[in-house]
């Protein structure tokens, strides 16, 4: 976007070297919305439209889309954080570009603002827009994106379908009376989808294949039928953050 001077590397937009002409065809929101505080929302959009070389006719549509039509004449400085963000998204949508770039679009927003922004992004995605979203919030990536690429120090660590890269792996923690650990381990090897059973702080942690959600009721009954009475059974969600740490660590090693 010609905001930072790159120390190395190349990139292209629409198969062409980056230029101001390319930027006019892309709707971009980098972190915070940047507008003239003393001007109204609509006047700010007029400036953005003029720079992008778009007509003013699209302004009512984008204001309506982000639900700011009623406040279009209010000064930008009087907007809430969520409204400012929505105005920035409206500015991105001027001229109905096919590609949108959002960098940390929910940064600094309250929960309502976050929900509004995510819903707007999902709405745009449903319209068929290509949205490039940069975020450190893995939960956000999982909720909003279809595909993900993980970059670290300029290196691409992993890329693919978000359900494959950031899949939630469930872990079941089981407790058994002392001396029964080996029997439990042996019994669980026959359970479908189990990849690993390992002791952890007095409990046995059971890992499953990616995307496999274990039925704890069935598991309990299965153990009982094998003559093992469980003293502890808990389904744990493995956090996306720990998954991310695992990916970045694996690559560093």
């Amino acid at each position, binding site marked *: 976007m*010609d905001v930072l001077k790159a120390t190395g590397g190349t990139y292209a937009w629409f198969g062409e070297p980056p230029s101001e002409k390319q930027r*006019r065809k892309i709707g971009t929101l980098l972190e915070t919305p940047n507008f003239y505080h003393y001007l109204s929302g609509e*006047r700010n959009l007029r400036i953005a439209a003029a720079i992008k*070389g778009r007509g003013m006719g699209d302004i009512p549509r984008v204001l309506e889309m982000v639900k700011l039509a009623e406040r279009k004449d209010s000064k930008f400085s009087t907007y809430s954080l969520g409204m400012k963000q929505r105005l920035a998204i409206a500015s991105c949508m001027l001229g109905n570009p096919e590609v949108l770039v959002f960098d940390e679009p929910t940064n600094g927003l309250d929960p309502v603002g976050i929900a509004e922004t995510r819903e707007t992004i999902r709405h745009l995605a449903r319209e068929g827009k290509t949205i490039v979203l940069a975020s450190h919030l893995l939960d956000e990536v999982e909720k909003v994106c279809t595909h993900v690429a993980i970059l670290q120090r300029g290196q691409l660590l992993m890329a693919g379908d978000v359900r494959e890269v950031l899949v939630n792996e469930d872990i079941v923690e089981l407790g058994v009376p002392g001396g029964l650990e080996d029997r439990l381990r042996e019994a669980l090897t026959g359970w479908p989808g189990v990849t690993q059973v390992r002791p952890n702080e007095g409990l046995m942690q059971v890992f499953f294949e990616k995307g496999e959600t274990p039925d704890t009721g069935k598991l309990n009954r299965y153990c009982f039928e094998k003559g093992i009475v469980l003293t502890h059974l808990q389904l744990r969600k493995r956090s996306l953050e720990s998954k991310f740490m695992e990916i970045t660590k694996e690559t560093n090693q």
Partner: protein
Amino acid sequence: MLNLLRIEWMKIKNYRTFWILLGIVVLAIPGVNYAVYSIVRTVTSGGKGPGGPGSAGGPIVNPFSFPDGWHTICYTSSMLFIMQAILIITLTTNEFTFKTHRQNIIDGWSRNAFIGVKLVEVILLSILSTLVVFLTILGFGFSSSHGGVQVSVWQGSRFLFFYFVQVISYSMIAFVIAVLIKRSGLAIGLFLIYMVVEQVVMGIVTNIFKVSAGQYLPEESTDRLIPFPGIHLMSQAEWEHRIPSYLVAAGIYLIIYYVVTTRYFLKSDL
């Protein structure tokens, strides 16, 4: 460029601070000159004001009539550069404060376009200020020449050109500071401090090192194009002789200001 200027106009036409500062710049030029004119009239009148019938050829020459008005009014108006500097600093640093310089680039301006239109804005404001000075000179000149203008109206008009060189130099110094410092209050403070510092440096260079290089400092070289009317630090002939060197110095500084601002803006992270 016209399209870029149209967008700049969209940015400022509804900005109240811009109109207040511009109003001060435009009104202060005739206003301050009128105040000085009134003082001069009071001091020199003795019941008969300068410019009154018979005074043109008398011992008291009205410094606001033709041809001296060009010099007097340009000098008096040059005291008001600070107002124009504040206006330029405000308009420029606003972009950095609101980060709209980033947004303009992201939305599709090139860095060259952004800094280029800002430079044109500085030139246009300098032209406007010069135009107001010109009208003020004509106003005072014709109104105080009751017996008809005895000399050519344009005699002394080179001072208006010197005024333009001076106002654009001061405006560019303000612009350079605004681009480098980015914060409005700090930039205005630094501009004011620089005005004092340069005088101190010139004093040291002239009095302690006994060299005349101080007269070629950025502000001093243009200040000397319009010396204090009536009292000359050097002979008229010597001043005439040095005018080209002051103009060359001003030109070199203007090129330096242009190179510094454009290179800095083109190379830095936004």
